């Protein structure tokens, strides 16, 4: 088989299967054939990621991590799933039963719908909407509502505090998230994610045309990933959960399988934003070097996804949780101005003639404000190695 045939094997298989379906049922069959793999692959990835995350975090803290269930502990998610399925489903007596029940469902639903516009490989996207990116952010904003529903309906102080924290945080970080993505829209001139991925699939000598390799693209990627970490409530921005203060935040009153659904929704959201970052900045399904294009495109997508997941785990194992005022200050005083500067930088890149001068100028336009902002941020703060005093 030629590399192209291997690359398109899922697409051709689908077309082959569609040939056996009567014309009336074809739209439905096509939808099912496209949707079911996504519904299978990403939850499976969730299961694998939980093990990898726990093992990775363990190694970062010089522990072993889970290693009992199955070979090297890789059947741990099955054990966790059985456990959460057999646990009692507790609903607080004063809870708003309907909203309490709908919240995890809405969360998982919103996290799943987002995958409709993500190109997983060449010609592999469920719905090629010409406002795909807008769709992504629009559906992503429903997660906030789900989180609020979960927190409010539980009728618990902790969950309400956690939900309000989470919503405030997600709204604050949605602005830098969208503004960081705007530079790519400016460069690509399209909101369709497959088109954006296609735009980056060319090569100069062996180097790809990924947006991350430009000054504004790199800055945009870093800003996007920071905002994505905050959007998916992951450490170091996980204070909606804040075990030490508000126990588990908005899902404290959930147990059993609903709790597992929250977990699933959170991880699916993380995969989706990582997938979006890959599509916007890391060239989607395209190979990193021109001599590697024979590897199927979907493998590249998942390889990049795993790398980003590893980065998320690494960051989670490294940084302590921020304080609420630090979190908000970081969003409004650093992220937002930096993304606005980045938008200006992308415009500059677009209108300057290509060459070394352009690269230097555009890099300077990013680096100088960054240095200024970081000096502002550290002004008046005594940064020193903390000396520990023990109680006497």
């Amino acid at each position: 088989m030629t590399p192209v045939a291997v690359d398109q094997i899922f697409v051709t298989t689908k077309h082959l299967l569609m040939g056996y379906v009567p014309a009336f049922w074809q739209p439905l069959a096509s939808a099912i054939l496209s949707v079911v793999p996504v519904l299978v692959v990403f939850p499976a990835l969730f299961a694998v990621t939980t093990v990898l995350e726990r093992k990775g975090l363990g190694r970062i803290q010089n522990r072993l991590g889970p290693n009992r269930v199955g070979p090297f502990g890789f059947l741990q998610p099955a054990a966790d799933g059985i456990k959460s399925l057999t646990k009692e489903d507790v609903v607080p007596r004063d809870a708003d039963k309907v909203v309490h029940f709908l919240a995890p469902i809405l969360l998982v639903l919103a996290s799943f719908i987002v995958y409709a516009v993500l190109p997983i490989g060449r010609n592999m996207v469920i719905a090629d909407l010409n406002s795909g990116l807008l769709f992504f952010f629009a559906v992503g904003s429903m997660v906030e509502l789900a989180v609020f529903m979960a927190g409010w309906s539980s009728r618990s102080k902790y969950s309400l505090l956690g939900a309000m924290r989470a919503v405030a945080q997600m709204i604050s970080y949605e602005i830098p998230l969208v503004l960081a993505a705007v530079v790519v829209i400016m460069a690509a001139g399209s909101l369709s994610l497959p088109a954006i991925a296609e735009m980056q699939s060319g090569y100069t000598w062996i180097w790809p045309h990924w947006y991350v390799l430009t000054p504004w693209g790199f800055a945009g990627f870093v800003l996007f990933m920071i905002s994505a970490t905050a959007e998916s409530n992951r450490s170091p921005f996980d204070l909606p959960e804040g075990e030490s203060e508000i126990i588990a935040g908005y899902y404290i009153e959930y147990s059993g399988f609903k709790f597992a659904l929250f977990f699933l929704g959170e991880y699916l959201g993380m995969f989706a934003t990582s997938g979006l970052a890959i599509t916007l900045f890391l060239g989607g399904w395209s190979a990193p070097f021109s001599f590697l294009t024979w590897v199927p495109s979907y493998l590249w997508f998942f390889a990049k996804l795993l790398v980003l997941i590893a980065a998320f785990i690494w960051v989670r194992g490294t940084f302590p949780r921020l304080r609420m005022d630090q979190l908000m200050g970081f969003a409004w005083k650093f992220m937002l101005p930096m993304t606005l500067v980045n938008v200006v930088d992308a415009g500059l890149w677009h209108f300057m003639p290509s060459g070394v001068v352009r690269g230097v100028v555009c890099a300077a336009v990013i680096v100088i404000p960054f240095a200024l902002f970081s000096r502002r941020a550290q002004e008046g703060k005594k940064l020193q190695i903390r000396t520990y005093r023990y109680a006497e």
Partner: protein
Amino acid sequence: MLGVGVLKGLVETARNFFGSYVSEERLTTLQYPEETSPRIEASRSFPFLVYDGSDWQQGMRCVSCQICEKECPPKCIFIEKSPDKKPDAVGKMQFYPAKFDIDISVCMSCQICVEVCPFDAIKMDVDYNLSATNRFSDLLLDKERLSKSNEYYHEIHPTEAASVDADLAAAREKAAPKPAAPATAAVQTAGTGGAAS
């Protein structure tokens, strides 16, 4: 500049991550049920009752004075005095506990019962594998389950047990001139045997 500390932190955790695969001394984890850490002599878990000799009912050092019951902060000890008397470790006729229960789900391992016991009858155990399926009856230890021999005590806390045996032997010396009841002779020899080992 902002971000340098972030990168330093990332490098540190990466070093931990890869180091845990390379160097053995980084991983301090023990695979618990298969391997256990070496026992430390000073470790303590929950109280037990010491008896001398081989018969736990005869050799019971406890004279049911109920000081530990009164002193216990969480009140987890329950003692019922016996109607009759039997010779104690020193050979004096004393009461013995008809019932001696410790609820170790309540016990907080403070060791006050050991401190206040004038007869060296209650000591701290080191066993920590105490999980049980029934939280009521399995965690309420009665007299029989609490009794452990002096040899066991020597095994877990050798230094402490030796000094306790020396004290007991001295007390027995003082009590020896008086005519001892025939039944205590066996206990006495067993007690000295324990001290010698």
